[in-house]
């Protein structure tokens, strides 16, 4: 294997994928969607969470505005005790919508960030990008297009890996634009710059990359965009079902499940990608508990100490590497 040649090929393929994305206007569509989200964040403001001044060394104390003790003592009484009342008004759409929260400014901003990273990007965003990028590989693998490239002195696997990394780099750029853009916009408007939110960038890219590797394998097998779109989405749903089912059975400890069934479930769980776990990783990385409703079974598993986030993530990444290896092997042995 000639590694410098392979690396050079990968660099060329990454550049080519960027050009491809620009030509399909996908780049601009995603940029536009990020722009809308950034504009939305610029329309946000938080008011009404003024805090009492702190003496040197004093630990701040606060009670949520809807706490029973606040109701009993009255706001004045609580403030007189030197305890802050945690409550703020979240203004959205330049004040068109107003949400009263029992949280302070930082938490109100985090609440928005969690919804944007967890729901907008990690679910809707990944689905959309999986659909929109599904055609990249089948087009590239069309015999009339790839034949001349395969007659070049470069390893076939490097063409495929380069294309895969090109799509990943493309998603990384957009994830960065989205997360950093919304983070800055919220920061400018509220004064809250919570760097935890930036963890969403690598987690989103990894989540996408794991499922896109399956799309790559489908592309090599079938060279069909339709199969890649529906196949990868269906695969995501199946993996989510398996992920949820395994955790539900683990938590509820179903008595009817035979040891063989349980073993098979465990094998499936550790073999296939785990989109639920990836959501959960993002959820906990952003310290989202209490801000957005989590899946009950997943939370119970976590509380019982049976959730292994690092191992789960590594197993999913291993799956992606195996998919890429099979796809590369398949391309290597395909007659054109």
């Amino acid at each position: 294997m000639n590694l410098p040649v392979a690396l050079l090929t990968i660099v060329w393929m990454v550049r080519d994928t960027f050009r491809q994305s620009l030509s399909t206007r996908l780049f601009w569509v995603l940029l536009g969607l990020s722009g809308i989200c950034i504009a939305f964040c610029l329309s946000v403001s938080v008011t009404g969470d003024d805090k009492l001044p702190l003496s040197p060394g004093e630990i701040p104390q606060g009670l949520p505005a809807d706490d029973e003790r606040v109701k009993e003592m009255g706001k004045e009484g609580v403030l007189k005790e030197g305890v802050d009342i945690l409550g703020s008004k979240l203004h959205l759409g330049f004040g068109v919508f107003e949400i009263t929260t029992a949280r302070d400014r930082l938490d109100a901003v985090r609440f928005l960030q969690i919804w944007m990273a967890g729901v907008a990007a990690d679910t809707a965003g990944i689905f959309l990008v999986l659909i929109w990028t599904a055609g990249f590989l089948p087009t590239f693998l069309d015999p009339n297009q790839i034949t001349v490239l395969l007659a070049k002195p470069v390893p076939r696997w490097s063409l495929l890996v380069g294309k895969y990394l090109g799509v990943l780099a493309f998603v990384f750029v957009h994830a960065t634009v989205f997360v950093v853009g919304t983070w800055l916009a919220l920061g400018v408007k509220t004064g809250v710059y919570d760097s935890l939110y930036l963890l969403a960038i690598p987690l989103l890219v990894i989540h996408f990359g794991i499922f896109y590797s399956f799309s790559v394998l489908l592309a090599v097998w079938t060279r069909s965009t339709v199969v890649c779109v529906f196949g990868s989405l269906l695969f995501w749903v199946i993996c989510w079902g398996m992920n949820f089912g395994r955790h539900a059975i683990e938590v509820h400890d179903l008595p009817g499940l035979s040891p063989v069934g349980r073993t098979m479930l465990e094998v499936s769980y550790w073999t296939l990608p785990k989109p639920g776990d990836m959501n959960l990783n993002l959820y906990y990385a952003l310290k989202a508990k209490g801000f957005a409703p989590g899946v009950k079974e997943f939370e119970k598993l976590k509380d019982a100490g049976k959730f292994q986030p690092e191992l789960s993530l590594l197993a999913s990444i291993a799956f992606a590497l195996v998919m890429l290896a099979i796809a590369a092997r398949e391309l290597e042995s395909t007659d054109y």
Partner: protein
Amino acid sequence: MTPVATFENVGKFYATGMLGRTGVQAVKGIHLKIPSGSVFGLLGPNRAGKTTLVKLLLTLARPSEGTITRLGKPVRDKSTLARIGYMHENQHFPRYLTATELLHFYGGLTLVPGETLRPRVQLLLEQVGLADRKNEPISQFSKGMVQRLGLAQALLNQPELLILDEPTEGLDLLGRKTLRDVITQQKARGATVILVSHVLSEVEQLCDRVAVIVGGKVSRESNMPDLLKDPKTGKPIPLEQVLQPLYERGVS
């Protein structure tokens, strides 16, 4: 002189179906030596196996049997591909690239150094008559222009072996002249050209030697002057008259 390519008892079976038991025997028992520095024509009716031979030579497909060498090395050694230029019969280039971008991209993958590539791209675009359209996306190119671009990309590495598979497809008169000039120039600088074509006038004019492939086998291999002579009378005969009975034998 060492041949640039050799085929020894080469066969290719394209398996189809779930178990791969059925399929098509594209070529069988091929023995060929392509002499260095010549223009070698591969002739034959449709589905005779000409393109399969080209694909086997370029490692686009693997032989089911036999051995093939390319520039003195086994075909599995991909390094020799850096010394080969290939123009495909029905080339689709990425439509989002301009002609210049495409030649830099393909030149990079052919391992031509950047400093050599830049002037050569400009020169080749002029040679194939696309210099004035060099910054337009390929999506705006006609079929003939794409073929010209295909020819330019095949010449990026100044190949020792140039393989042209149906290169005249879609080319106008001027394009065909450019192609003829290119083949003549390549031969003059010592390169070998393999020409797969149905345009007999060009084959007759350009090739030094030809192999006629019929039904996946070499039906006849000869120097061009010998081929164009009646074996009995020694009188010249047109190429079409030579090929017709060979092709018909394959059909029957």
